[in-house]
């Protein structure tokens, strides 16, 4: 995995740790910073593997440190909490997915329903190998032993934006009813989508199965937004 671009620190503590003076204004990174960056990446990579195989609750910071071959102390100087590691893992993954969206979106054809089907098919194909990770992220949203740091799941703004754009385009082209409030459709689609993840994780469905169920659900939702 390539090193992430400058990431906004999630809270005050992390901010003070991360913002060494030389990090500002494009100064060349010091050896210490490079070291820090390397630790950060190792921790993220190790955490991704462990969350994926044994779940979020089942993974301790100590195990992450061991797996990343760094000290527990250096994990804590890099991240404020286990949840912060999880959100960073998810942010990195979503960056890859969004690049995929950017590639695919200009080529979308057909009815609004078909375009939506393609968007979700891309999503499932991209994420299917990491269902447990995804579920862990959703579950962690509701866990309030956590500091209120990161984007709650299900408000993946970027995915919602892609869907909303698709609906607005449908309105402009006349196959989506002008009376429809796009956010309501977005929410219904997101509900269907996260539910399919859960099904997939419990029954080990593959991307093809997930896509097939989603296609039917999109068809049903499209009955509600189509111009008639």
């Amino acid at each position, binding site marked *: 995995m390539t090193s992430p671009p400058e990431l906004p620190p999630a809270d005050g503590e992390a901010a003070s740790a991360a913002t060494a003076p030389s990090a500002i204004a494009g100064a060349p990174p010091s050896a210490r910073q490079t070291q820090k960056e390397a630790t950060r990446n190792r921790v993220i990579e190790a955490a991704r593997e462990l969350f994926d195989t044994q779940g979020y609750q089942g993974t301790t910071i100590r195990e992450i440190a061991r797996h990343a071959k760094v000290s527990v102390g250096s994990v804590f100087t890099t991240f404020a909490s286990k949840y912060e590691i999880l959100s960073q893992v998810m942010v990195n993954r979503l960056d890859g997915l969004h690049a995929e969206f950017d590639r695919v979106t200009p080529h979308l054809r057909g009815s609004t329903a078909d375009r939506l089907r393609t968007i979700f098919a891309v999503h499932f194909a991209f994420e299917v190998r990491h269902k447990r990770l995804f579920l862990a992220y959703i579950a962690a949203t509701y866990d309030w032993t956590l500091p209120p740091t990161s984007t709650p799941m299900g408000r993946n703004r970027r995915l919602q934006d892609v869907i909303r754009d698709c609906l607005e385009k449908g309105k402009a082209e006349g196959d989506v009813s002008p009376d429809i409030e796009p956010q309501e459709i977005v929410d219904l689609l997101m509900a*269907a989508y996260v539910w399919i993840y859960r099904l997939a994780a419990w029954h080990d469905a593959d991307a093809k199965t997930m896509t097939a169920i989603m296609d039917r659900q999109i068809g049903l939702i499209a009955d509600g937004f189509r111009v008639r």
Partner: protein
Amino acid sequence: MMHVATIQAADQNGAKAPTRRALAKQQTRAKVLAAARRLFSEQGYEGATIRDIASAAGMSTGAVFANFADKSDLFREIMITDMVALGEDMRAAARHGDGADGVEETLLRIFTAGYAFYQTQLPLARAAFSVGWSPEDGPALRGSPPVQVLRGLITEQLARGVDRGELSQDAQTALRADMLFDAYLSNYPQAIFENWNLDSLQSRARNQIGILLAGVRKR
């Protein structure tokens, strides 16, 4: 109608005269459950430990474990009690007006009964979502009989709509019921994280139901 049978069976068990020892055990369980409910509401599922629960109930950790296998067992018991009560509220809401006002209004009353039920205990609802999404406990919670009752209630309304000619024969009832149930659940985060009130939840649910039934509504 499996759920009705289940509820009746539970009543019959309760009606049997319990021995003194059984009564004491029941009281202990009730105390633990009350303490657990409070702590889950205050600290979430992950934050509340068995040790804290025991101490809040004024008993030893051992006494808690004598009654419940583990924390998830304890939480499941609370959830199931609530879901049974919620199922009754929803059923009453469904019966109200004898469905004369149509499937959409009936479904909306069912959903609203749910939101009203959890309005005063949103922290517990939040804990339930946390558990419901966990790979370990999620399937058991979603598959538990009282949750199936809630889903069944939605399926029933769709079937009645088809019978009465309000919805077309090809209503894909099972899929549609699942989607309606998920739409119902999907509004909880707005209540939990964004303080939506009952009116906002209701009006959102009304539109969702409208969208999900649009394809099968006969006009």
